[in-house]
């Protein structure tokens, strides 16, 4: 055992050495053919995270030693046809380096290594106003930053962290067809249609895994229910009914955009599925002794219709923006209901602003970017027994969250301090994400930051943000671009 661990540490050290060498000997410039038809850009990155709070389900100290390589290839075959590809490789040395993580087999299996074809698609424009994008890709709708309203096409993968990661890295790309059409008679108003069709692929949100750096407290309510069932002599059986990857389980959506009276407007519609599970009671069944019966539960991802509207408008120095998403018959967990599920329409709204503020005498020539957002989630037919999954906290009729982002750049933007604060007004809990970005020349980027979660009240473990209190962390990131 000791020899095996020693061998793993050797491997980790070897990979570390190779990565460091690669950092310094990577060609400085992106590859580009003479006429720019073929371009390769990307980066090598190391990220170390340090847990600041100790918990049963994740440790403090050194919690992530990740090396990431991201390569993006673009090829313009003609003016009408081009190809795009992103490949990402990841190795997290912490699973070889630290004994605690070596023993987290599930986390290790999923998070230690990754080689993923992130995106692979072609753009084809048979005529100027029409463009097809076909292949594995990410589509982001809406005007909100950080929290998702209409941005529901691609699921999230937050196993390596959420907002502390690049926005595009937390999306799970899907194989789909996206069609964009500029409406000729609305050309002056940027009138356009976008159609998205995910024919078969079914993917769901992925959350931090027990034993990993970002593991969260398990949802107590569920564990308690299971314990109660067992105490009553019933065997709980949970079946995860992930949808088949076939044409009946795809997604389809459309977006109409226009600029009218100086306002950018979009109308959105998506027929998809919930990317988080809902657990149904599926009846009793036979069970082996000593249990009296099985208590069957089905974990499903119900179909849903979402309609949305977004807008933005500039008022001189300030841009106002908003987003509304209305989910019809959203399914909430309610253990007091016979099938554990209750339906209600669900409205999510955001109003926000972006403001470039100039302070006389401060940081000459550079504004401070301030972006504020106010989110409201309203359950149209609320019930006090509704529970949010997978986190397990009680759903309130109105849930409100406010966010604030501020940043500016010093010394030709080689030093960029930034702070993001999210405050859940309903649960008095918050998340603070300060970071300092540093640039050196054209190719080196550094980032130092922290993610701090906390909240007021007695049961902070099962409310938004505060539930990740034990995942408080600091990190350092080095990126070498090419």
């Amino acid at each position, binding site marked *: 055992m000791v020899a095996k661990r020693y061998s793993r540490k050797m491997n980790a050290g070897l990979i570390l050495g190779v990565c460091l060498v690669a950092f310094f000997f990577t060609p400085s*410039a*992106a590859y580009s053919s003479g006429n*720019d038809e073929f*371009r390769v*850009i*990307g*980066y090598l990155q190391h990220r170390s995270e340090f847990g600041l709070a100790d918990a049963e389900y994740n440790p403090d100290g050194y919690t992530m030693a990740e090396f990431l390589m991201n390569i*993006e290839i673009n090829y313009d075959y003609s003016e009408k046809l081009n190809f*795009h590809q992103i490949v990402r490789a990841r190795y997290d040395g912490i699973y070889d380096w630290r004994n605690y993580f070596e023993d987290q087999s599930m986390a290790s299996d999923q998070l230690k290594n990754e080689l993923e074809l992130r995106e692979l698609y072609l*753009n084809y424009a048979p005529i*100027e106003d029409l*463009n097809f994008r076909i292949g594995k890709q*990410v*589509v*982001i709708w*809406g*005007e909100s*930053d950080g929290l998702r309203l209409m941005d529901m096409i691609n699921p999230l993968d937050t196993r390596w962290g959420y907002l502390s990661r*690049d*926005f*595009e890295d937390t999306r799970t790309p899907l194989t789909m067809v996206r069609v*964009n059409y*500029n409406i000729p008679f609305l*050309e*002056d108003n*940027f009138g*356009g249609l976008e159609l998205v069709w995910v024919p078969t692929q079914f993917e769901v949100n992925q959350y931090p895994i027990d034993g990993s750096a970002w593991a969260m407290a398990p949802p107590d309510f569920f564990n308690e229910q299971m314990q109660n069932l067992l105490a009553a002599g019933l065997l709980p059986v949970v079946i995860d009914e992930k949808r088949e990857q076939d044409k009946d389980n795809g997604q389809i959506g459309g977006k109409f*955009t226009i*600029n009218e009276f*100086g306002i*950018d407007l979009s109308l959105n519609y998506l027929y998809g599925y919930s990317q988080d599970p809902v657990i149904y009671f599926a009846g009793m069944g036979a069970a082996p002794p000593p249990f009296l019966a099985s208590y069957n539960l089905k974990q499903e991802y119900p179909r849903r219709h979402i309609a949305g509207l977004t807008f*933005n*408008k*500039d008022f*001189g*120095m*300030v*841009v106002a923006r908003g987003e509304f998403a209305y989910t019809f018959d959203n399914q909430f967990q309610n253990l007091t209901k016979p099938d554990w599920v209750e339906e209600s329409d669900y409205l999510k709204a955001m109003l926000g602003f*972006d*403001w*470039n*503020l*100039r302070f006389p005498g401060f940081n*000459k*020539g*550079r*504004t401070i970017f301030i972006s504020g957002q106010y989110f409201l989630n309203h359950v149209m037919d609320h019930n006090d027994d509704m529970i949010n999954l997978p986190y397990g906290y009680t759903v309130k009729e109105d849930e409100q969250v406010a966010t604030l982002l501020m940043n500016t*750049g010093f*010394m*030709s*933007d*080689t030093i960029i301090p930034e702070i993001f604060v999210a405050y859940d007004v309903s649960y008095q809990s918050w998340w603070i994400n300060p970071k300092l970005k540093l*640039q050196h*020349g*054209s*190719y080196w*980027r550094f980032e130092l930051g922290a993610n701090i979660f906390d909240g007021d009240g007695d049961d902070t473990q099962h409310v938004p943000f505060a539930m990740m209190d034990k995942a408080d962390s600091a990190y350092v990131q080095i*990126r070498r*671009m*090419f």
Partner: protein
Amino acid sequence: MDKITRRDALKVLGAAGLAVGGVSTKISGVDKLLNGGGLDSLGIGMHESYGADLIKPGTVINSGNYKGFPQLKKLLPDHLYLRLKKGATRSDLPEINVVPTRKLQLSESEQKWKDKNNGTVTIDPETKRLVNWQAGVPFSDPKNAVEVCHNFICRKWDADAFHFINVTFRVLDRLNRQKDMGSLLWQKPFKGRTTIPPVPEYPDNPDNVLWKQMFAFKTPYDVAGNSILRIRYDSYEKEDDMWAYIPAMRRIRRYTGADVQDPMFGSDNTFDDFAHWLQKIDFKSVVPTKVEEGQLLTHGYPDFNMDGHNVKSDARVLLYPIWEIRPVYILTVEINDPTYMYSKRITWIDKETNLGLYMENYDQKGNLFRSWTSAYWWTPEGGHNWVTVDIEDWINGSKTYLLCKDADYNTNFSDKVFSKSSLKKAVR
């Protein structure tokens, strides 16, 4: 000439004996100019002995001998003069080779419009807007600051359609660390067109668009794919529309009036400074107040071949090969908006070409904030475009060069480039 690409210009140059190549070719070009024999063969006439009473052609000025030319103080703005003294600023001027002043003629179509406008275009005394103007330089012999300002605004500073294929932003921060960012630019005027049909204006232009511009970065990775669409309307009252695509968020964001004053990705160039200035002059809050006639020793029109010595990966100082004394208007524009980044712009405008050669921008306290020194390529037929811009931040101590390598000039392209959907696919 309807279509002149930069490559065409280089061919012309090559045929005239100034071959395309690297530094050595550039020096040979300078030699010809110093000997006074190269320009006539290019079809570009000289202004005989213009400025020779101040500094004779063939003179070489450097940090060691510049004090022996007291007339330089008259020919160079204070801060440009200061850069002659070695170590006085962080970017010393390289050696100045003075050549005879050249005659730079406008293109046939621009000249035609200028002649047509002569005596017919007037200024509305209340709004200061042009009356009877359709295209081209409105005033052949401007009499005041407002007329000089209109000439500067209406100058066909680019083309009726142009596409910069490679503009490098070379940023040198206060610690002299270099960051290069590669970019693309498309621009097209929708009014004031002189050459490519439709002339002088798009017939179907309900929003009264003056011009549209699309800008996109292609390197390095962290800025690649960022693209910005800007639409300028002819109305003084209507603000520009601007949108930016941010690939890291995969989202189009609206830009505000403050975004146009922020440095572009850490450079010393702002959207409102681009092309000397893109700030809208409304003659109310932004007002030309003063104009003087003068002379400027400038490198504004180097030989065409900048590729060899400009964009070297380690170049921290541009080697301007040719300096000449040009007749200029020195125009002061005051900005009566205490929230704006500048209180005043002073621009040295070439009398012959109406292009900005040098500009000083002052902050709200009256201190010099940023200076712009521009260089253009110019063909015998009057085709012209940017070659380099040298931007100095005198307060923060940073510096940016804009190095323009390839441009398609008056090569028409689709208007669809200027759409929000194009933002997403401008580069990636």
